């Protein structure tokens, strides 16, 4: 196994399709093509894939992370991890962790004030992964997912702006 991490090539339709397939197989939420287009076409630089160079299909992603970043209430720049998936046979090798680290590193370099995501309350693997990186649970959302499970909203603070209520940051609005 030789895992290589690289950014998405949005012009590569085959890559797009395989990312969609990988995530569709893994996530509980059914996402339409619009969700994929929404993320991947608007923030292609915030999607990363993992491929196994030693496998028979070195061009097919075996893991991926899909993110976006935009101003939150016009006062802080929020990075958002929308999707993360690793093919079941490749789990347990730290691939997800590496993908998250690459994505957060990129968003931090892009001056994000915080990184946010939602995950199922029952998904202890995801919670362990993110909480191990410093994310904390900010709130619980009742029956958030289509599978009827509650979700936690997790945030990783990157700057002090993340630690002040939006209302009190209004005077220092972000330039848009």
């Amino acid at each position, binding site marked *: 196994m030789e895992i290589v991490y690289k950014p998405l090539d949005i012009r590569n339709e085959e890559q797009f399709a395989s990312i969609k397939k990988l995530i569709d197989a893994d996530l509980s939420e059914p996402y339409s093509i619009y969700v994929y287009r929404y993320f991947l076409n608007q923030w292609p630089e915030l999607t990363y894939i993992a491929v196994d160079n030693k496998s028979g299909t070195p061009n097919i992603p075996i893991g991926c992370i899909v993110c976006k970043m935009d101003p939150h209430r016009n006062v802080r720049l929020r990075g958002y991890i929308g999707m993360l998936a690793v093919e079941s046979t490749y789990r347990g090798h730290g691939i997800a962790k590496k993908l998250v680290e690459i994505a957060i590193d990129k968003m931090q370099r892009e001056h994000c004030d*915080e990184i946010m995501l939602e995950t199922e309350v029952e998904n202890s693997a995801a919670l362990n992964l993110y909480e191990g990186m410093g994310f904390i649970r900010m*709130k*619980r*959302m009742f029956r958030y997912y289509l599978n009827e499970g509650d979700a936690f909203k997790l945030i990783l603070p990157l700057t002090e702006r993340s*630690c002040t209520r939006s209302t009190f940051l209004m005077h220092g609005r972000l330039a848009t």
Partner: protein
Amino acid sequence: MEVDSILGSLSITDDFDQLVDVTSLFDELCSKLKPEAIVKDPRFDLFEGTHSLEVNNSKLDSSLIELTAEEIEFDVNVAYDPPLASVTAIADRLLRCVISWLNDYQTLPTTVLSCRYTESLLSSLVKGTTAGSSWCTGNILYDKVLGSCILGVCYLTKFVQKLLSAGIVFEEEDLNFNNMGFNTFDNLPGQDVVINSLTESLQILEAYSDDSLHLTMLKHILKIIICLVHLEDHLTDYSTKTSHLDELIENANSVNGIFPQLQLSPPKGAFSTYIQKHRSNQFPPRKITKLPTDYSGFITLANDVKTILLVDKAESALETYQFAKFFNKLEQRHVIARILFPLFFIRDDRTVLGKFSYTQFYLLHVKEFSAQTPSEFESSIGNELIQESSNMLLEWYQNCSQNTCRYRQGFNRQLILWDSLQAQFESVNSQVYCSWTYFMKLSSMIEFSLKGFDLDIYKPFEAYSMFWYVYYLSHHLETFLKDSQNDIESNINAIHSMNKKLKKLKAGEKKDQLRLKYRFAMDNEMEQLQATKQFLNYLLKEINITKSLCLIEVFQFAILKSFGLIDNKNSTPSKFSNERLIHNLRFKPFNSIGVPELPEYEVFQQTLKDFVIEEKGAAFDIKLERATNFIETEVRNVVSSIDEIMQGIKGGDNNGVLVTGTRLVQELSLEYYCKLKHTSKALSVNSKVIVNTLKKNIKNKDSHEYKVELVHTTEGWNYFPIQTLRIKQDRYK
């Protein structure tokens, strides 16, 4: 030829000269598009994306649902045999669909609307519809009895739609009302027509000589539906009558007794995903829900609605306040009851319970808390500020009926509003209003913080900071309550001293005036002063319990840290953030609060250091013993305070010491304090377990084998989880 004429009718114009060929323009624009560019409406955001459907995606396209032959061929105009058993089975399943929809938060299309008869009735409804089914089988059980059952359930559905439109709870979260494009609920006949139809059906069944269980069951079902149709009376007439709710419970219990003896199977295809495939569906396809196996859900509904109606009997603001605090606290009430509560309490005529204007209701709270009558302090305050405070109070009441997650979020929002109100009252030097607002703010801060433990928001490493902070808030609240109590005490003493003065004064005008003043105070103020004093006694006991429990948790954390088992930071440092930022994010809701000021990060660190035992050898053991003894003392104090409160509650606030205001929620409040008591004892046991386990294992040098988890005990109160030692599992074993 026919096809040509149909296609021809689609032509937009016959005059082709008027049309402009845009092909080249289109091609030109397309050539400028980058391959990765997406063309979308600016309003198309992530929310739109995640709610989009996709043709030919089996997870998102309900037209791809595969139906069985029975489902496709099902015909509402056929009287499937045997009619009585079949109609009973259909009506029974429909009622269990109602339970699944309302008690288990399932969707409308997978429950009530999965019934083909419901779909048929709603499809045929036109304005002015009178009772009667839209199908005709020639069998009275299908056409009349089942017809009225469907009509009744649709009427209930319409009522639920009305409740949802009040905006109290959140669609998709608390209640689903995907009506599949049916806008015909408004065409349903009035309540009297629906009840008549159901009553006539009952009469038809009464005439049956059949003594089968199916017949008995069907009669119960009709009676249950009548009760459900009457639910709206609590809103339309603000009725407090509970006879229909009692009947609902009675009939549901009867059905639960019959169930095990009956084999009920509706005709195949009578319930299906047919509606999702054939009607306008803006949601992904969903499988038909697994239904509950009895009618206990209706008993929950009836009991919960009965509970919220009790608020009508409140005789003071204190009682409504305590009612709101307890009615939804121990377990989340049925969604209908949770919506009904604020609508029944805060009425369309802009009154509370039809008795007080919003402002009067607010002033009543301030009066009962301060024992000062509004006239004494009303004039100095602007109406706008009073109005704002009244609205804030009503928002607090409304928040009490939210689902368990929204409840905490509501407090988060309220914190800054209470803080801002307090600052405004301070600026106009209104001590009485200011004090009450401060009390509400501090109570909300404590509730918000501790509720996080119930919702598993905090990780074990955060337990110290959160419990220490609540301890800090409790200390401020305790000081404030003591000051308030002293003020009340002074006022009481001032009145008593008038009497003493009277005895010393010689007869004359001065004495007469003082006597009048004394009489007035005794007749108009003393009772409220005594009640407030006793209520403050109760609040002080309660805040002492919170403070002590927090301190116990803090001590246990410190003991665990002393053994090297835990720290108030993540075990692995974050590559991207740092402990201070993470701490500051956790305390973000409080960092703007004026008083009490949020202590700096360093203060949290220093206080933990003060609690931790850093000594070695015998000195360590001595300090450890001191800490465990302290915990034991605190537990005893907590248990004793809880006992006193419970005695007060059981005695109906008549012991002259405590006023708890829990008359309407006596059982619930007792259950709550029992849970707190259980938690105190569990914490005591935990201390011993921690010390014994770790002392033994420190000698064996394997304390690193343990980790700490926050555990909720089934009988305890979740705001104070037990910091439990667990043996680490090797994930690769």
